[in-house]
């Protein structure tokens, strides 16, 4: 045990609250730094365990949206990502069945559990995106949906008697599927990403990457990255939200080398070298989904689920949601949103964001 406990000099001011009804938060000046390792174990680090237990008990919510033209393998990929049938594949349309006139939004929720951790996963599908002849403004329903989730959350938050845990339906992550043409991004892709990168975390993925050879793949990725940069589209992880040097180097590597991920999805298993793996069987070989040499699915999975899941949620909550909230309150003249007593309706939630001065 250490002798001579170091005198901890404090610079704290004597913050006096004289008995007057004047609320003055008496949080004092500079805190003094004490390294308690020298002084015997207190037990502060047990708070990590306490926190972990608490979060395991409450469970997590995660909402992922998939956007892309039909036939790009969105549902398959989501099923592969979460190793379960969370997304129902659109069965092949008969010609008699009408192609939906507008983009539909389908949100389906499932509860999955692993290692004691319960997660409520919601997959938001957007059938009809980019499928019409005239695709102008087909991102509007999507933007509207996203804003509506923010609105719902905001309304709950502004309530006087609020729930202990506000149900979180905000879209945490949007996977945008790029068609593997091998040339460059389509105008629709650029338009969509330009509009939505400001309201939601967009992760672009190159779908059906088994149609490209390695060289084609890397060239395509480079071109896509360049185009996104030229158009000023910030996809997740956004440069401006890197918190410290460590984050920055890690994210830079991902941004400049791996993204957009070229993925292949599959829910069928095949026997390869004595192991059962997820893959696609073709006459010229079996494409293993989780093999890094074949495609980058494993990178995407690790990125989204194993390392950046919490960060996706936090960026959504701390940045996108706060931006929406600030805009909404400003538009309302500093008032929280809502409808008047007699049911007079305020201007509805804008589908497109109000002209921003950003």
């Amino acid at each position, binding site marked *: *045990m250490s002798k001579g406990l170091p005198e901890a000099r*404090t610079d*704290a001011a004597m*913050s*006096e*609250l004289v*008995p007057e009804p004047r609320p*003055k938060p*008496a*949080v*004092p000046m500079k805190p003094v730094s*004490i390294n308690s390792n020298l002084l*015997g174990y*207190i037990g*502060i*680090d*047990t*708070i*990590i365990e*306490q*926190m*972990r*237990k608490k*979060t395991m008990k409450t469970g*997590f919510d*995660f909402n992922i949206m998939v956007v892309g033209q039909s036939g790009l393998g969105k549902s398959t990929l989501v099923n592969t990502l979460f*190793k*379960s049938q*969370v997304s129902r594949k659109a069965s092949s349309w008969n010609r008699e069945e009408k192609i*939906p006139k*507008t983009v*539909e*939004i*389908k949100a*389906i*929720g499932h*509860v999955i559990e692993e290692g004691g951790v319960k997660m*409520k996963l919601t997959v938001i599908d957007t059938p009809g995106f980019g499928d019409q002849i005239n695709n102008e403004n087909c991102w509007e*329903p999507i933007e*509207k*949906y996203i804003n509506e989730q923010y609105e719902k959350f905001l309304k709950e938050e502004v*309530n*006087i*008697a609020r729930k*202990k845990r506000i149900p979180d*339906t905000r879209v945490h992550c949007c996977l945008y599927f790029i068609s593997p043409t091998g040339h460059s991004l389509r105008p629709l892709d650029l338009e969509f990403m330009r509009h939505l990168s400001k309201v939601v975390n967009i992760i672009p993925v190159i779908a059906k990457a088994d149609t490209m050879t390695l060289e084609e793949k890397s060239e395509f990725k480079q071109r896509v990255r360049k185009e996104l940069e030229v158009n000023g589209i910030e996809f997740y992880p956004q440069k401006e939200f890197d*918190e410290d040097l460590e984050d920055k180097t890690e994210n830079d590597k991902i941004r400049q080398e791996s993204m957009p991920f070229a993925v292949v999805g599959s829910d069928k298993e095949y026997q390869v070298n004595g192991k059962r793996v997820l893959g696609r069987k073709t006459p010229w070989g079996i494409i293993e989904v989780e093999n890094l040499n074949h495609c980058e699915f494993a990178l995407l999975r690790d990125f989204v*689920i*194993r*390392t950046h*899941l*919490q960060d996706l949620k*936090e960026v959504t909550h701390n940045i996108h949601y706060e931006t929406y*909230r600030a805009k909404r309150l400003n538009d*309302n003249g500093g*008032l*929280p949103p*809502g409808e008047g007593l*007699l*049911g007079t309706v305020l201007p509805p939630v804008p589908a497109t964001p109000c002209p921003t001065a950003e």
Partner: protein
Amino acid sequence: MEAEANSGSLEDSGAFIQRPGEGCRTVPLAGHVGFDSLPDQLVNKSVSQGFCFNILCVGETGLGKSTLMDTLFNTKFEGEPATHTQPGVQLRSNTYDLQESNVGLKLTIVSTVGFGDQINKEDSYKPIVEFIDAQFEAYLQEELKIRRVLHSYHDSRIHACLYFIAPTGHSLKSLDLVTMKKLDSKVNIIPIIAKSDAISKSELTKFKIKITSELVSNGVQIYQFPTDDESVAEINGTMNAHLPFAVIGSTEELKIGNKMMKARQYPWGTVQVENEAHCDFVKLREMLIRVNMEDLREQTHSRHYELYRRCKLEEMGFKDTDPDSKPFSLQETYEAKRNEFLGELQKKEEEMRQMFVQRVKEKEAELKEAEKELHEKFDRLKKLHQDEKKKLEDKKKCLDDEVNAFKQRKTAAELLQSQGSQAGGSQTLKRDKEKKN
């Protein structure tokens, strides 16, 4: 059944009914996905941001509050003990940065100074309540801001209140009861018996029972350690039965056996702080820090803070939703109040403007008066000056006349003289001339 949402088209304003909870079926996983690392991701983020914990110590002067804090956190915190001569109750607050392995904790310790020292203690609880409310208010203000940074906000709300009970051995003082009653809805109260080495074991059990029954009969809600999580339910349950904890604080270390321990030395023996048979210090530390710190923080946020927020907003005149009318009248009342306020401001502005105009007029009149006076004075002086000048000129004229007259007379006289002495005079002149040559 799968809970499939209605697909929204552009027409029906995209309302989907996604029913969480009910109807969400659990899907089995066919392999290892990897989101079980989610709690770790969350915890890592929190660790990098750091934690904060704020303790409030309420108790009479001299009960050992500072010493107990020093003992709990193994460090010597701050300065001078307080005197008994404070005129009112004040709160002294200090913040420290503690670091253990990779966890950083911002610890704030707030102590009352002068509690229980006055002759009239009716208002003793007020500064404490105001302080706690002020912290809630600050948080509420931040939450209501348009541009806010809640995730990096330094949370100053009090998470735990240690109430120090004097070891009389009889019962709670009325000051204690009144104060605790006022505080129980605002903060998590953990009552402790201070300086409990003054009480013997048997007296202690009786004392504890008396205290607990008094608290119950007066309806004081003290903090109960949570028993809903199985892993801690058992230990928390037993601890709940030991409340209030009888503690002893000491920062002196003495050699007992072959170890250095925190203890107090008396002629009749040594009291060891960390010996469970001697006092409940270890229990307090266990409960406060190692088991329930997170729960204390959560209760503060979800129960006490929400209650404060609700009361405050209702006080300001906001109501929540009616089951029939749509949410909510926050908008309307806010607007009405705002207009009222603006109206008042405008009225005040008008008044001020009027007053200003009037004052300007008055001042202007005054100044005009003064100007006139000055002009008059100037005129008068000018006239005086002119008179003087005239007089002087007259005098001068007279003088000149006299001088002229004199000159005339002089020249006349000289002429006469020169005529008289011209005959003889011219000869003298000649002679003078010849002399000179």
